[in-house]
């Protein structure tokens, strides 16, 4: 039963990584850049929800919606002001800018909200579902996390395969010039991807803080790095890859903590990543780039 319980915790943590990893991977797919500020958008989302729910005592739904709106605007603004002017710039310049944006967000949060951690109440309370005569208990937060992750995955699959905008997103990811020749507004499409990724970051931030209730300006960085790892693990640019990578990473982390060593669990996570990348440099589901003449 302990095994099952760890598995559920792992899948639940992994679902959060997966939702964050989707933002990394979609942005990488379309803008070919690593948006290192993504983790800090998560933090801003969590603070937005925290203020709505704890400070202004509004219903959790309002907190979630406000957080998503704030993060969407933030993500689109970051892209517009910091990344779009660098569209033709070398990758290194873009990467350094992204790290700069990340520090900017963390330090702004420090100024606005101080470094004192806030206690974030779970948006679904602290109850849990008891199974097998109470031998197995699954927190409502974990249930909500997994269900949310599944819904997001289905919605994104539908979006990218069935809608006009979703197909345009795939077209722009593959060839921006050809997409422009089709009459696709490439800048608007990239903005849309940043909007989706940032709205997902808000959801991830709220789920993360619901499970691990301390919120501070650096809350987003470590999950951000792990989710980035998950995206690479699954194959950067691949949406199903981000999901699988995220969930596997969460499971490995929790099993590592439970059965090997609490201190070494992060090291184990990165070790697995290194091994996977040695065997499959493009990640689990990454496409090897092939061109046809």
């Amino acid at each position: 039963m302990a095994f099952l319980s760890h598995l559920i915790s792992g899948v639940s943590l992994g679902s959060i990584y997966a939702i964050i990893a989707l933002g990394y991977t979609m942005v990488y797919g379309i803008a070919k850049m690593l948006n290192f500020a993504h983790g800090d958008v998560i933090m801003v989302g969590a603070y937005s929800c925290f203020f709505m729910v704890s400070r202004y005592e509004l219903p959790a739904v309002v907190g979630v919606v406000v957080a998503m709106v704030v993060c969407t605007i933030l993500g689109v603004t970051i892209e517009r002001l910091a990344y779009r002017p660098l569209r033709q710039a070398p990758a290194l310049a873009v990467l350094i800018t992204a790290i700069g944006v990340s520090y900017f967000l963390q330090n702004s949060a420090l100024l606005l909200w101080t470094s004192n951690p806030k206690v974030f109440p779970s948006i679904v309370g602290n109850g849990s579902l008891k199974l097998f005569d109470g031998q197995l208990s699954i927190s409502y937060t974990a249930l909500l996390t997994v269900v949310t992750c599944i819904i997001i995955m289905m919605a994104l699959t539908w979006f990218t395969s069935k809608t006009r905008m979703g197909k345009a997103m795939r077209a722009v990811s593959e060839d921006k010039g050809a997409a422009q020749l089709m009459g696709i507004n490439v800048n608007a499409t990239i903005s849309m991807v940043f909007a989706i990724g940032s709205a997902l970051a808000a959801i991830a931030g709220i789920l993360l803080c619901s499970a691990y209730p301390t919120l501070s300006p650096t809350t987003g960085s470590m999950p951000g790095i792990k989710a980035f790892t998950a995206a690479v693990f699954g194959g950067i640019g691949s949406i199903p890859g981000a999901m699988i990578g995220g969930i596997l990473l969460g499971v490995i982390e929790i099993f590592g903590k439970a059965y090997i060593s609490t201190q070494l669990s992060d090291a184990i996570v990165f070790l697995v990543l290194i091994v996977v990348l040695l065997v499959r440099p493009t990640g689990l589901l990454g496409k090897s780039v092939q061109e046809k003449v």
Partner: protein
Amino acid sequence: MMLKVSDLHVYYGAIHAVKGISLEVNEGEIVTLIGANGAGKSTVLQTISGLLRPRTGSITFLDDDITALVPHKRVERGLAQVPEGRRIFLSLTVAENLEMGAYTQRGADTSVGMERAFTLFPRLKERRKQVAGTLSGGEQQMLAMGRALMSSPKLLMLDEPSMGLAPILVEQIFSNIVDMNADGTTILLVEQNAQMALSIAGRAYVLETGQIVMQGEAAELSDNEQVKRAYLGG
């Protein structure tokens, strides 16, 4: 007049690739732009589509100055291009590629355009659910042309549609171009295969190192000794 390009200068950094080109395309025509590899043909087409910005010069399309217009707005106005190397979306299916071609036809029913593309290129219909990366070179060229037609362009520009294709397919692609023109689409055709291009075009421009060195009726140019020697292999 449909398209008028005046004194266009285009640079890649310090490289002066297009040095003062002027050309015109009238409604209903097939006009060809021929020249050796590196002459600047693709640069001209990309500038007309808006992917490249000219340093000076102007582009007028259907009496409007579009020199500063963003590329996707040019497509909305009826200017489409089949780019060099086809550049179809390899990871999308044939049908999805065609849908992308109809991206500017917001809310319109794409099935009419798709049927038209399938009539012109029946092979695409059989393969419409297939991922485009699995198509042969000839089929990819047909898809690139079908895709460009989906926006119902007034002017269709084609950049070396015969490149890399077997002679029998080249014949077919050129007859498709004639058909599209007969359906009312004005054509600006860029080719290295000067012989074929001159055989279907009404007028032609000859480009050399970024400048137009000759222009006139296609039939006259095919008889011109200089053109024969330089581009027609004798």
